């Protein structure tokens, strides 16, 4: 025990002594949560729309009012049929310049068709260059049209359809991204710092000292990793507090459950870091590998931004080998939904399994290298 403790203390000094690693450990995570919390959002808070009303009738004004009364729509009037020039062309120009997101076009015979035939069409032109935004814009339009129909029919609904959104009633993106970012930060600390720390010893040659010491291989590994578990957990607490108190994201589940899974996840990250560092020849290579093998997949293939269900099958298969995939489900579940231990048995098992595989590979490499030195 005393021997392990000695390495732990030494490792702590390494982290605290280097200002650069201090920045990575404490300042980078908070900055990232901060920027991400504000900058990363798919929310649509405002739809600028141009109205081209050729009809200028009571009915058309009623329809336009429907849009005007919705707090999301901000209407711009491109002039009626009376003003000079072609209002539709002016509106299209606005669409092209990204001044507006959609054009509402009401045809001349709108009112007549409604009163005589009992049926009328009108046009909506949406800027679809950003397909996601276009989709959301489309949904809001549909909603308003349905409301208008219901009002016209007086009878209320044509059919009963209720939508209820759980866990995030205001549908805010930050609920999704911030807990995810905590997972990314834990991985950054556990995988990246560990991999750099061991490669640094290799580069400076000080690893030979560890190799020829009476320490057993597992003692070296435990001693070198425990400080990073502690630092990662500290960072976890720091970022979680930030998410709770700064961004007001409620924590519905048990923190103990979260802690339990966080430790499993950190161990998986450490195992990855150790494996990288036993393989990479230099610090630079280790950093690069840690970025390419851990950070990028954890951001892009784990469901952090883009849902896994929508990925193509090959990439989906890869996502199963990424620890962050499982932990993202867990952290979002526990924080936002109040999920419990029993809901994540599979995820927990997968984390343990991944760690075991990675550690096994790493320790074989490590012992072989140690033998070579001795």
């Amino acid at each position, binding site marked *: 025990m005393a021997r392990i403790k000695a390495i732990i203390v030494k490792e702590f000094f390494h982290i605290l002594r280097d200002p*650069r690693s201090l920045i990575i450990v404490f300042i980078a995570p908070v900055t990232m949560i901060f920027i991400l919390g504000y900058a990363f959002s798919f929310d649509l808070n405002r739809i600028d729309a141009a109205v081209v009303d050729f009809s200028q009738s009571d009915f058309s004004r009623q329809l336009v009012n429907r849009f005007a009364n919705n707090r999301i729509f901000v209407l711009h009037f491109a002039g009626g049929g009376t003003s000079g020039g072609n209002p539709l062309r002016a509106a299209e120009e606005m669409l092209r310049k990204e001044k507006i997101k959609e054009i509402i076009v009401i045809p001349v015979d709108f009112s007549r068709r409604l009163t005589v035939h009992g049926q009328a069409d009108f046009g909506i032109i949406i800027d679809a260059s950003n397909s996601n935004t276009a989709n959301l814009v489309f949904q809001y339009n549909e909603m308003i049209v349905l409301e208008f129909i219901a009002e016209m029919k007086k009878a209320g609904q044509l059919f*009963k359809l209720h939508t209820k959104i759980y866990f995030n009633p205001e549908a805010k993106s930050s609920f999704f991204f911030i807990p995810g970012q905590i997972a990314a930060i834990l991985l950054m600390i556990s995988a990246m710092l560990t991999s750099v720390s061991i490669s640094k010893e290799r580069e400076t040659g000080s690893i030979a000292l560890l190799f020829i010491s009476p320490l057993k291989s597992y003692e070296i590994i435990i001693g070198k990793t425990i400080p990073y578990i502690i630092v990662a957990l500290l960072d976890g607490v720091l970022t979680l507090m930030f998410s709770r108190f700064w961004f007001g994201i409620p924590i519905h589940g048990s923190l103990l459950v979260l802690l339990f899974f966080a430790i499993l996840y950190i161990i998986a990250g450490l195992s990855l870091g150790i494996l990288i560092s036993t393989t990479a020849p230099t610090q630079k290579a280790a950093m690069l590998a840690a970025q390419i093998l851990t950070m990028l997949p954890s951001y892009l293939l784990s469901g952090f931004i883009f849902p896994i269900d929508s990925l193509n099958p090959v990439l989906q298969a890869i996502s199963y080998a990424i620890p962050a995939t499982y932990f993202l489900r867990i952290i979002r579940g526990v924080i936002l939904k109040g999920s419990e231990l029993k809901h994540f048995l599979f995820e927990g098992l997968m984390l343990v399994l991944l760690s075991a595989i990675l550690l096994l590979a790493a320790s074989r490499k490590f012992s072989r290298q140690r033998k070579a030195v001795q």
Partner: protein
Amino acid sequence: MRLRYLIKKELIEMIRQKEMLFLIFVAPVLQIIVLGYVVSTDIRHVPVGIVNLAKGNKAEQIIQRIDQTPLFRVRWVTRQPVDYLSYFKKGTVKSIIIFREALDKKRNLLKYPEVQILMDGVDSNTSLIAAGYFNGIIKNFILNDMGRRGQQLPLQAKVVFRFNPELRSINFMGPGIVGFILTILTIFLTATSLVREKEQQTLDTLLMSRLSALEIYIGKALPSALIGMVDMVIGLFVVVTWFGIPFRGNPLDLALTALVYVTAILSYALLISVFSSTQQQAMFFAWFSLLMFLLLSGFFTPIENIPSFLRILVDINPLRYLMKIIREIFLKGNGITYFWKDLLILSGISVTMVSISLLNFKRFISK
């Protein structure tokens, strides 16, 4: 033309190693293809559970429709009420649809079952869009049904999706990815090149030569710019041929914008180079800056949502202008008359960057 030799040396240094050749010419193609598949806001295969408590066959017809679209993957259908929350907590389905017999106020059975859609709102974007799709499916079903009996909805919106009629997310992301590749490559190549000479102490040799500071500066920047532009052409080729993204604008407009942009990024990278003492430091700063540029550029998410106190960072971010212009050129075919303002601001940023970086570079050289 002493400068020519320096540029030649830089180019040789860059392409001498096999790994560098790979990084410069092969990696970007792979990155674009993989990113093209990953960076997508298309929603597909949303896992749903269905609880059918309605009696008639209407509900079953709707369920069939839901099952047929690639948007949803029906995980289970049951005729018993279930504990909805526990399914959400476990996360196996993102949405549960419940069909019930619907009654109107006079306690008569309505024609259509009552539909209740429960969404797991954690991923708010997916759930909003999925809920919209459900509405669409159910609405279309009822419309068809009414159409068969010669009835119509009194009001219908005919929707046109301008510039991207199939709503393909890759059409939006693809041009952005090209901009991203251009950035990542030039920033890393340039930020490390000067520092490497510092580390290997070959910088002194360079300084002892008769080259002026400006010549060294250009000699360091130009090769990266060249490689960046070549890569951009490769990238454009890949997104247009592999992903079939339409290129509607004028390539010359894009070339001009890219040139102005690359100047800004290169001078920024050289600034990093001046201030870093090791390659590792330079890499870290480059990585961190890249992340900031990317997050605040509107590449993934719209910049309109960024609150005003962060807006200043967005407004001085050169990548933001490139993203906007490249997407406009690609999808809308806009010419310079549309984005001259953005280009002007980008040029302003570029000039400022170059002057700051050149000034620091000169001070550093004269030391």
